[in-house]
C-alpha cells in the first residue's frame, strides 16, 4: 500500500479510530473508583443499575471523554484551517487571541460577579462558558479589525495582530488577577490552565451545535483550503475570491475554537500539533488532513486528560498542562526542523 493511496488513508483513519476507542476504553475503566471491566459494561448497557456506578460512568468519566474528544477535534481542525489560510506551519488557534480573550473575560467576570451567581441551575453553570465565549469572539473581532488592510485580510498581519492582541489581553488578565483575592482566583486558575475537569452534559450540549454546523462547512471547503495554500496571485487567477473565503473559514474556526475554549479553557498546542502529525500521516490534502486532524486532536486531549487524571491520583493535573508538557518539546522540535530546512 503506498502512502497517499486511498487504501492507505482509510487504514490510517481506521487505526486512529481504533486508538480512540482504545483510549476511551481505558479512560472509562480506570479511575479512583475500582470497577471491573464487566461492571463498566453492565452499567453502560443498563444491565445492572447501581447508583454509584452510574454516577462514576455517566457523570464523571463519560462527559470528560466526550468533551476531551470534541475539544481536541475542534482545536485540531481549527488548527489545520489556520495553518492553511495563513500558510504558516506555526499558526495555532492561540494566535486568534481566543484563548487570551476568553481567559480575560472569565477573570473579569469573576472579578465583578464572584459569588453573586448562586445555585446550580443552567444559568449558573453556563455563566462561565458564556463569558468565555463572548470574550473569545470579541477578541477575535478585535484581531480582525487590526488585520484588515484595504479590504483584504493579510495572513502576516493576522498573525502579528493576533499575537499582539493575545499578549495585551494576557496582561489585562494578569492585572485583574493581581487585583483579586487569591482565593477567588484559584478556581479560575483551573480553567485557565485548560482543564476539562468540570465536563458535564450541559457543556457538551452547548458546544456540540457549533461543531456540528461549522465542521461540515469547513470540510466542504477543503478543496479551497488546498488552493489558499498557493500564492495569492495564483489563487486569484484560479478564480477564487481569496479574501472572502479566507474570512469565512476564519470565522468558522473562531466559532469552533470559542466553543471549545469556553468549556475547556486554554488548551494550547493541540491546534499546532495535530495538523503536523496528520500531514505526516495522510499528506497535505485538506479533504484528508481535516478528518485526521480531528481524530488526532481528540486522541491527544483524551490521552492527556487520562494521564492528568490518573498519573498522580488523587491529585489531578489539568489536561492543558499535560498537553503543554508534551507539546512544548514538540514545538521546539518543529522550529528546529524548520530552521534546518530553511
Amino acid at each position, binding site marked *: 500500500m503506498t502512502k497517499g493511496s486511498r487504501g492507505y488513508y482509510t487504514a490510517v483513519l481506521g487505526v486512529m479510530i481504533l486508538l480512540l476507542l482504545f483510549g476511551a476504553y481505558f479512560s472509562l475503566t480506570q479511575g*479512583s473508583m475500582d470497577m471491573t471491566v464487566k461492571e463498566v459494561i453492565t452499567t453502560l448497557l443498563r444491565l445492572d443499575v447501581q447508583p*454509584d456506578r452510574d454516577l*462514576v460512568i455517566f457523570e464523571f468519566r463519560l462527559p470528560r471523554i466526550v468533551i476531551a474528544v470534541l475539544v481536541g477535534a475542534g482545536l485540531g481542525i481549527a488548527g489545520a484551517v489556520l495553518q492553511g489560510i495563513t500558510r504558516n506551519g506555526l499558526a495555532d488557534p492561540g494566535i486568534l487571541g481566543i484563548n487570551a480573550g476568553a481567559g480575560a473575560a472569565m477573570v473579569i467576570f469573576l472579578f465583578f460577579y464572584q459569588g453573586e451567581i448562586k445555585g446550580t441551575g443552567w444559568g449558573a*453553570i453556563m455563566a462561565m462558558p458564556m463569558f468565555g465565549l463572548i470574550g473569545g469572539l470579541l477578541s477575535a473581532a478585535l484581531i480582525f479589525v487590526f488585520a484588515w488592510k484595504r479590504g483584504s485580510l493579510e495572513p502576516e498581519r493576522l498573525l502579528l495582530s493576533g499575537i499582539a492582541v493575545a499578549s495585551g489581553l494576557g496582561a489585562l488578565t494578569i492585572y485583574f488577577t493581581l487585583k483579586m*483575592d487569591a482565593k477567588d482566583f484559584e*478556581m479560575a486558575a483551573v480553567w485557565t490552565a485548560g482543564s476539562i475537569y468540570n465536563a458535564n452534559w450541559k457543556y457538551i450540549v452547548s458546544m456540540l451545535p457549533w461543531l456540528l454546523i461549522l465542521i461540515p462547512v469547513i470540510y466542504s471547503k477543503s478543496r479551497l483550503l488546498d488552493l489558499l495554500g498557493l500564492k495569492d496571485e495564483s489563487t486569484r487567477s484560479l478564480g477564487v475570491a481569496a479574501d472572502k473565503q479566507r474570512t469565512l473559514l476564519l470565522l468558522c474556526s473562531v466559532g469552533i475554537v470559542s466553543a471549545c475554549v469556553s468549556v475547556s479553557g486554554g488548551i494550547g498546542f493541540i491546534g499546532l500539533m495535530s495538523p503536523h502529525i496528520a500531514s505526516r500521516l495522510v499528506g497535505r490534502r485538506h479533504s484528508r488532513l481535516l478528518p485526521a486532524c480531528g481524530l488526532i486532536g481528540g486522541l491527544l486531549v483524551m490521552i492527556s486528560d487520562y494521564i492528568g487524571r490518573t498519573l498522580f491520583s488523587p*491529585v489531578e493535573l489539568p489536561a492543558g498542562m499535560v498537553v503543554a508538557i508534551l507539546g512544548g518539546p514538540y514545538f521546539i522540535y518543529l522550529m528546529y526542523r524548520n530552521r534546518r530546512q530553511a
Partner: protein
Amino acid sequence: MAVILMVGVLSACGSKGEVKDSAGGTKANSTAVTTSAGESKSSGSAESGEMRTITYLDKTYTVPAKAQRIVITGSIESMEDALVLDVTPTGAITVGGKFPSLFTKITEGTVGIGEKTQPDLEGILKLKPDVILASTKFPAETLEKFAKISTTIPVSHISSDWEKNLNLLAELTGKQAQAKQLLEKYKSDLAEVRKTLNPVFKDKKVLAIRIRKGSICIYPQNVFFNPSIYEELGASVPDEVAAAKAQQLISLEKFSEINPDYVFIQFSEDENKETPKAFEELQNNPIWKSVNAVKNGHVYTNLVDPLTQGGTAYSKFAFLEALKNSTLMQAK
C-alpha cells in the same frame, strides 16, 4: 428506605444542639440531597439513617443525625475548623499531594481526595460520605457533581462567616458545647488582649501584609488578619487598607509611604517559589529599614502558620494566642 426526617430546623448558631443518635448509632449512608435548585436526588443505600435538617447561611440541608463520614474539599477554612474541634475528616484536601503538617493532628487515617481545586470525585464517592463540606469558591458545575455524591454544603470562604462555619462543623459532629466554650474563651481573651493593645495601637498605623510571589500584598479591612487587628483590637484602619477592594500589591516605596508603626508579616516559601529569598532581600533593603515599624522592632513575622488564611476560627484563635505571648503584650 427508612429515612425519618426530623424537621426540627436547628439554628445555624447552634444554640440548640441536642442531637438524637439513631438507634444503633451506626453510620448512615443514606442521603436525601436537596440542592439549591430544588432538585432531589438520593444515592447510597440506607442502613438505618435518622436524618435531620440543619440550616447554614439561609439554606437548609438534610444530613444524618450524626454525620460520621465527613469529606472536606476545597475549603481550607473547614480544615482549620476541624483542627479547632478535633474532628478527623474521612477525606480531606491535600496540598502538594500530602496533608500539610499543620493538620497532622486531625488527618490520621484520613484519605487524601486531591488538591483544593480539582478534587478526585471518584475518590470522594468511594468514601461514601455522609456530608461533603465544599467551598463557595467552587463553580456551580462542580458543586452540582458533589451534590450527586452526597449532601454538599458549600462552606463560605468569606471571613465574616467564621463563627457560622465553626458552628456548622460543631453541629454536624455534635460538638456544639466545645465550640461554644472555645468561642467564649476567645471572646474573653480578646477583651483582655484588647485592653492592653488598644492603647498601644491607638493613633498608630498597624498593617498586616503577606509576601506573595516576592511582592508585598495588603488586604481589605474584612480579609486576612485584618478583622482581628482593626475590628477586634481596635487599631485604626489605614487609608490604603480602607481603599483596597481586594488583595492589592503595593510597592516598597508605597509601603514606606504608609510607614506603619506595627507590621504583621505572613511569609510562606510555598507562595514565593520563584523568589524564596524575597523576604530576606526585603529585609536588607534600605527603604524597608527606614520604616518606623522596622526601626522600632515592631515587625512580627509569621506569628501563626503562614498557611492559615486569617479569618477562620483557627487563625483567629492562633493569632490571638500568638499576640498574647508576643512582646507586644509587654510593650507599653
